[in-house]
């Protein structure tokens, strides 16, 4: 059913060669190529600029501004950051912890919800779907959740405030449901005939068959947890629990954060006046964003198969 684009274009080539009809292909193809090349450049160039800035000597920035090809290179920014690595490593630790725990738990819960709502023979399918997907249409807003989490659940200043409220997302359940409803029901049926229990069927048959959806959603979920700054902004005051994104937020708002921040300067005796703050903050942005950009290509092959948006109706 899924023909690859290559097979498709090979097919259209063969049609062209047999001369069934002429396509105005060259001009359209050329234009589309030029357009996509420009877009690709537009997507990539800002990264290159930021990377270049992070390797530029501070005095060169002050003199020439940000450049793609710095007049003077320097590793100072990274050197300074890694000289006092406690803040950074701790932030990485928190971020990695929330990302791993959050992604795994969320995948499990999403898969379970998606699976049960995809089962046509589940008696309470209608009400359950409504229960899940109504939250997509209406929500209590920021403040009630804020008060609930802070005043009643007392999750503030724990990593759970950055995990638990974000485990279930109706849109991802919709994607999961769309994928799982394509798992042939006969497989489930015959496993049941053989006496397998539902939970076993789910873990040993349905989950392994859903690898593309799990990989795709797993990647999106890990983007979500890795990139989350909002929950930390709201709930985390404890310096030891700051994730890397919140560190960036503070630096963006206050350039001096790195130098005035307690640990960096005082503890390690950095000479504040020599601190390359302009290039260092771009280096921080790269250290925060880089890991996600690097892992994404490994998941790309699952994307097209894994992203089938299901239907609310059935």
């Amino acid at each position: 059913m899924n023909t690859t684009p290559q097979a498709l274009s090979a097919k259209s080539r063969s049609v062209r060669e047999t001369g069934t009809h002429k396509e105005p292909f060259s001009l359209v193809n050329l234009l589309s190529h030029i357009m996509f090349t420009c877009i690709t450049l537009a997507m990539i160039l800002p990264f290159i600029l930021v990377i270049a800035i992070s390797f530029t000597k501070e005095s060169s920035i002050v003199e020439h501004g940000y450049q793609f090809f710095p007049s003077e290179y320097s590793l100072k920014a990274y050197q300074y950051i890694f000289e006092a690595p406690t803040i950074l490593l701790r932030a990485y630790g928190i971020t990695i912890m929330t990302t791993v725990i959050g992604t795994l738990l969320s995948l499990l819960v999403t898969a379970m919800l998606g699976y049960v709502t995809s089962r046509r023979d589940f008696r309470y399918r209608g009400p359950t779907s409504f229960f899940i997907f109504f939250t997509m249409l209406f929500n209590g807003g920021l403040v009630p959740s804020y008060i609930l989490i802070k005043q009643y659940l007392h999750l503030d200043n724990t990593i759970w405030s950055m995990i638990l409220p974000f485990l279930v997302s109706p849109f991802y359940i919709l994607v999961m449901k769309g994928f799982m409803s394509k798992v042939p029901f006969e497989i489930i049926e015959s496993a049941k005939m053989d006496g397998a229990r539902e939970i076993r069927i789910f873990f040993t048959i349905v989950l392994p068959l859903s690898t593309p959806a799990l990989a795709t959603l797993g990647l999106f979920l890990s983007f979500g947890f890795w990139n989350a700054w909002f929950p930390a902004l709201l709930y985390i005051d404890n310096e030891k629990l700051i994730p890397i994104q919140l560190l960036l937020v503070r630096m963006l708002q206050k350039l001096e954060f790195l130098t005035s921040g307690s640990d960096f300067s005082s503890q390690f005796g950095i000479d504040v006046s020599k601190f390359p703050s302009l290039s260092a903050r771009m280096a921080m942005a790269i250290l925060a964003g880089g890991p996600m950009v690097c892992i994404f290509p490994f998941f790309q092959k699952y994307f097209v198969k894994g992203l089938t948006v299901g239907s609310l109706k059935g």
Partner: protein
Amino acid sequence: MIKQRKPRSEWYYLKKNSELLLLLLPGALLILVFAYLPMFGVVLAFKDFRYDLGFWDSPWVGFHNFEFFFVSDTAALITRNTVAYGLTYMILTTVIALLFAILMNEMRKRWLRIHQTALFIPYCLSWVVVGYLALALLDTQNGYLNKVLEALGFQTHMWYLETAPWPYILISAYLWKNIGFSTLVYFAGIMGINQEYYEAAKIDGASRWQMATKITLPLLSNLITVLLILSIGHIFVGDFGLHYFIPNDSGMTIPTTDIIDTYVYRALRVNGDIGMSTAIGLYQSAVGLVLVIAANFVVRKINDENSLF
């Protein structure tokens, strides 16, 4: 042999579905706590919340919180901003993503992979990181954009202090970050279309334009309407990260960048105004709900199959 069927009690079915219900339980609890409990919290919109008195004992104030918000000029401004940005994002994303997906479908695999990767990379980043990228371009003193303008002999700008350029900057940033994801969803949709339609059309001598408009778009219409209806509900919910970090929380740009979400955040974090923040949140959610139901109703009138529910 026909057995006499007894009417079965609900307990029988509950038991029969018990294992599936068990699978449902953890997720259902999470939804109950983190999505449904806050819904009841909207009554705070009608109370004067005080931390010392708590949720139950804070005094009722009727519509005072709404009144306070709606009589100010801000309400009109931020509502207008939120809706205008929301509509623009929605329409541009849909049109451009569809165009990209259709063009990508025609591309050779090697190029497809390169362009798809490039298009998707910005989606991996948080708005905070994108804020840094924007700063590299827009910074008044060192920013690349000002250097280019200077080199070309144009007037340089203090971007973070002006209001006029921001709609363009925000729309560009939004598309830059999100277009890859939408393109991917539509591309996956196109991949799901049975290739026989295209082969048949080719034999009949259809042009590529005809195939795109007569096969691809109609067969994608279900996906397009589902995503459109969902995003219509979000028109009233702005993208906080985009509107907070890209203008770098600069007060000068508020007239053209402030949306309901940034306003609520400031009201909450800076002024600690629980009642009004809740009231605005309720206003957002309620209007969003009405919009989704209305959009779904219209779609159902036109073509029942495409409606969301």
